[in-house]
């Protein structure tokens, strides 16, 4: 390893890789974050890419970015602003300059700064001279040329050469942050096992980038080291939210001793859940790529009737399409997990951007009085936990559960301490007992769930359906009073789940001035903001909600202990309005943002500070 003397120790660093959609920035970012995680840093990542597969080369619209934040302390979000920006072309520079910290380093591939590219990016002239006047360290690296040089013995096919430029940039950052190339070299060997030439080329370029950085005074003299974070003992891996969701569901099936069935239709950003489950035939997962979202959920309902842990995964527009069938699951009281990875809406909206605007739909988007459980995950890795919880609630309480994640945590990654399966609770679905007279709508007296009779079991033959059913016996019933009874039973069954979920906790003190309420994927940013303000002595506390319907039973009591409450969401105020309904007695301030982006810690701190000042 390099000369330790020149190392500057830092607690945390944010890097942003950016380039054309075809420039391999997502891969580059992933490599850097895996290497850092393996090294022992805490890491949080944020891939941010356009809706087009290959948006027009060289334009701002076509820029694909990957931001990562690593540290020797707890890292809960990918960072607002970056210490280092890698810009593979002028458009990338243009799109991302706003995200560079004062004093930050900008590495540009100067070979791409020709007239054509500058024009495509919307620059009248080369902006670098102007930017140099700002507070940046700009490194004009001839990445293309140097890559060609490194590759000359391997191939001169320009396409192949260009495709490895990202490795050059990666090599440079590895030098800058004192990382070994081992993990990436391993990865290249595995990935291109069958094409040793390609592997070799990539490795050469990676090393060339590393070496080149060493020659650049401004980089070599500022080499930074971020020591490993103090993490709990255990075995770790990097994981993104979608994989964690898929795994949580598989784990739940194993714990319930059921087979897992997933009926889904692809949709960004939820598709990766289906992809991961489809790959898990080793664990017996049955995936059914349906003809549309309705078929996705209906096959899952069929599978649930058939005795599987049944799941359907989708995003906003797909959840709209599933509304009617969720009603059927509510009526038939079958277990079902509906995963909705929220994206920017309404309609097709901003398919690759993040938002929290499907909460209303999850809570209310069905005909009739139609209560479903709603749960939300907060971070990439805890998608595992809440997917597992969703399945547990669905199975043990015989109800559909809507699990909300979002594009940000679905694609973002972080290191995750792998749980042992033995540490997870058993899941015990309320199966109907063989040999007893089976009444489909007889209920557990506490939970109020009905019992699950699986086709194939002799003697439990029965019929379910979407028409109102007679209490206990389950025959079709139009009796007015019965409808009232059943409506209230369905409502109460869901309400009772509050007795089977953890109580709400607060980060901060028991009581105080400002309580920040948040939910779902904003956790990391909100936590950072509150944490830093608390460290600065502010009377601020945080209540992050994961169980939304029903809410934990102690929420009202918690709210009563703080002078002011501010609810922060990436929407126009859906949770806050729900709280106004459920806990009307409190006054709620709100902070909302609708940019298809996560909050920044900065804006939150600013906003909370303002509130605190308004004493």
């Amino acid at each position: 390893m390099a000369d330790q003397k020149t190392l500057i120790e830092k607690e945390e660093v944010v890097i942003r890789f950016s380039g054309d959609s075809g420039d391999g920035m997502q891969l580059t970012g992933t490599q850097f974050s895996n290497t850092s995680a393996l090294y022992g840093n805490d890491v949080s990542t944020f891939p941010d890419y356009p809706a087009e597969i290959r948006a027009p080369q060289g334009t701002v619209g076509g820029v694909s970015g990957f931001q990562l934040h690593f540290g020797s302390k707890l890292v809960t979000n990918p960072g607002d602003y970056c210490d280092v920006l890698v810009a593979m072309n002028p458009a990338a520079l243009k799109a991302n300059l706003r995200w560079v910290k004062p004093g930050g380093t900008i590495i540009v591939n100067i070979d791409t700064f020709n007239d054509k590219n500058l024009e495509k990016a919307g620059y009248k002239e080369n902006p670098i001279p102007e930017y140099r006047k700002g507070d940046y360290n700009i490194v004009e690296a001839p990445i293309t040329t140097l890559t060609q040089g490194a590759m000359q013995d391997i191939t001169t096919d320009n396409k192949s050469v260009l495709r490895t430029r990202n490795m050059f940039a990666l090599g440079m950052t590895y030098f800058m942050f004192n990382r070994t190339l081992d993990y990436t070299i391993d990865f290249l060997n595995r990935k291109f096992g069958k094409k040793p030439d390609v592997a070799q080329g990539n490795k050469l370029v990676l090393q060339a980038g590393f070496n080149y950085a060493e020659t650049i005074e401004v980089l070599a003299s500022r080499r930074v080291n971020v020591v490993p974070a103090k993490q709990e003992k255990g075995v770790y891996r990097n994981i993104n939210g979608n994989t964690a969701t898929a795994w949580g569901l598989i784990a739940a099936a194993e714990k319930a001793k059921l087979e897992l069935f997933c009926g889904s239709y692809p949709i960004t950003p939820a598709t990766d859940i289906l992809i991961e489950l489809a790959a898990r035939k080793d664990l017996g997962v049955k995936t059914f790529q349906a003809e549309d979202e309705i078929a996705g959920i209906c096959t899952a309902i069929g599978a649930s009737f058939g005795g599987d842990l049944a799941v359907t995964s989708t995003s906003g527009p797909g959840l709209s399409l599933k509304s009617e069938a969720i009603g059927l699951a509510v009526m038939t009281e079958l277990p079902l997990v509906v995963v909705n990875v929220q994206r920017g809406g309404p309609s097709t909206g901003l398919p690759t951007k993040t938002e929290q605007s499907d909460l209303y739909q999850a809570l209310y988007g069905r005909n009739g009085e139609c209560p479903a459980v709603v749960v939300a995950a907060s971070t990439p890795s805890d998608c595992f936990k809440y997917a597992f919880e969703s399945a547990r609630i669905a199975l043990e309480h015989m109800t559909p559960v809507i699990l909300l994640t979002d594009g940000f945590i679905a694609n973002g990654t972080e290191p995750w301490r792998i749980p042992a399966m033995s540490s997870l609770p058993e899941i015990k679905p309320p199966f109907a007992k063989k040999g007893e007279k089976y009444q489909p709508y007889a209920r557990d007296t506490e939970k109020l769930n009905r019992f699950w009779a699986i086709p194939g079991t002799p003697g439990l033959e029965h019929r379910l359906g979407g028409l109102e059913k007679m209490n206990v016996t389950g025959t079709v019933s139009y009796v007015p009073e019965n409808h009232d009874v059943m409506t209230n039973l369905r409502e109460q069954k869901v309400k009772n789940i509050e007795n089977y979920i953890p109580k709400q906790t607060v980060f901060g003190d028991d009581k105080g001035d400002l309580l920040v309420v948040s939910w779902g994927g904003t956790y990391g940013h909100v936590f950072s903001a509150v944490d830093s303000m608390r460290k600065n002595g502010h009377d601020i506390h945080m209540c992050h909600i994961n169980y939304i319907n029903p809410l934990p039973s102690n929420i009202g009591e918690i709210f009563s202990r703080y002078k002011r409450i501010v609810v922060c969401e990436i929407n126009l105020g859906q949770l806050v309005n729900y709280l106004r309904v459920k806990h009307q007695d409190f006054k709620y301030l709100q902070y909302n943002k609708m940019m298809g982006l996560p909050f920044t810690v900065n804006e939150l701190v600013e906003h909370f500070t303002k509130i605190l000042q308004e004493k």
Partner: protein
Amino acid sequence: MSDLKIQYKPADFKSDQEVRWCPGCGDHAILNSMLKAMANIGCPKEKVVVVSGIGCSSRFPYYVSTYGFHGIHGRAAAIASGLKVANPDLCVWQITGDGDAMAIGGNHFIHEIRRNINLNIVLFNNEIYGLTKGQYSPTSKKGAISNTSPFGTIERPFRPGELVMGAQGRFFARTIDMMVQLSADVLEAAARFEGAAVVEALVNCVIFNDATHEMFSAKENRDDRTIVLRHGEKMIFGKEKNKGLVLKGFTLKVVTIGEDGYTIDDILTHDAGEPNPAIHHLLSNMQYPEYPVALGVIREVKDDTYENLLVQQIADVQANTKIKKMDDLLKSGGIWEVK
């Protein structure tokens, strides 16, 4: 379907629920045929599941004593597909109407057929939306008067057999409500077929579309106006059993044996198992008065089923993996330990 054969009587499959179809509705007859067929097939009752959508016909599950699922409109196919794939051991019947399967449920219908999921699909075709009180359906005859087409429809109807084959259908049969034994036979054949089997049951809605099939289904003329196809047998019909079908270029032609020089040898022999759907197409498209309406099993071509392939694929993958349980997956790939 299980191999275990149990001795059942039709009544064993009858439920205790009052049948709520109008007196005279053709659905009653199909129910009777189904009870017969279920008894004959002998699949253990607890393994039989009847899934339906919404419509008069879709009330069916309440009237049999097996497992049942009365779904939502148009989604019987998807629900049944999920059930069968999740639990291939079950014998799954899908009951659906011309509206349920061919209007709102058209897409699921063609996809379940394409995927060849081993389902027994009974399409109750009364050429009308019964339950909603008489709107024309995608199978209503062009010009049909109904409450939403007071001046006659302007749409040419689907022909279910044609659509089924357009979607790669491997089994298609047709029957008429009044022909209880034929219905029982084709239902049984559908159940025994491994794959998506569609039975078009021509049923009469006495209330909203009375006598729509009567031209050829009425007892007096039925023998002359329909032909019951049986695999391996000559395509002969008529009260006198003297009419038959011959091939003429790309079309079929009705001839009388003994007239115009046609002998029994000229008459086509029905081969339900022919993979090329061309002739099954022609047969299923035959319309009265030009042709007799084809009944019986028109097409029955074996092919892999979706659920068998899935089970096989899972078994293959599992035979070759080190990941046997969740703990293995959790610890696979790029992991590291913090000590």
